[in-house]
């Protein structure tokens, strides 16, 4: 569009407005992350596993357990170990739940193909 007129008067690749937008988006997010960190500092005690939005199981973070979650969508192995919880195995295609590592108060581990979430409750 209109590029015929001035082939040499090319547009900039990146301008001051772009950088301003980038910096403000990142700044707001970093502030939000810090605030979340302060808000959810309390130690988590229970692990809540949901499937399809329904509560599937509640586990204590204090005792080591292994929970096999078998649904019609697939299989996940949830492991509680040393006050940490993570998904050890899954037969989902992307394995993002396994790669996500341990769940924290702020980080819910999700297996979207199986509609499974593993989160830590503050209660």
């Amino acid at each position, binding site marked *: 569009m209109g590029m015929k007129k001035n082939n040499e008067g090319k547009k*900039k*690749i990146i301008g001051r407005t772009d950088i301003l937008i980038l910096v403000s988006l990142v700044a707001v997010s970093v502030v939000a992350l810090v605030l979340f960190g302060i808000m959810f500092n309390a130690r988590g005690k229970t692990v809540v596993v949901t499937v399809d939005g329904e509560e599937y199981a509640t586990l204590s973070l204090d005792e080591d357990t292994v929970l096999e979650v078998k649904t019609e969508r697939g299989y996940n192995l949830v492991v509680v170990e040393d006050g940490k919880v993570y998904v050890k195995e899954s037969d989902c295609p992307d394995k*993002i739940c396994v790669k996500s590592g341990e769940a924290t108060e702020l980080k819910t581990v999700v297996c979207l193909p199986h509609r499974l*979430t593993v989160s830590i409750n503050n209660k």
Partner: protein
Amino acid sequence: MKKMNMRSASHRVAVYGIMTAVAMVFGYIEHLLPLPIGIYGIKAGLANIVPLTILELFGAFPAAVINLVRIVLSGILFGNTVSIAYSLAGGALSLVVMMLIRRIRGITATGVGIVGGVAHNIGQLIIAVFLTDEIRIAFYLPVLIIAGAIAGLLVGVIASMTLQNKNIKKISNI
């Protein structure tokens, strides 16, 4: 806008078809080589170079149609209904926001890409909250905004460079 419709309909069909194919290839490459980060929604989003470039070259309607065709075809070939829902939510929100944001004075295609990347992730997060019924996923928002902004920066710079290519200008003069 009007005068360039004179070239020929077949020329336009060919250009749009090539663009769709390029977007599908980008999407497929990323499907084959995902970033080893392991957080939902984090990828470079190379396929979004195409809708952004088309938005700048031809306007919103062709960008929307090409993106829709790309998402549905890629979904049928490599994905499933859930992945189509995610791509549609991200693609649609991103395109609408990019359409609005590009009217801002002083913004280049790079800035449009940054905002588009962020909007894409927000659209996908909304779908994720619906599908899992787990509102706490929303706490990912800051992470997804940062990731979307960085991915969008990459996409935007590539789109900007593409837009300056003389051959692209020639091809797009339809």
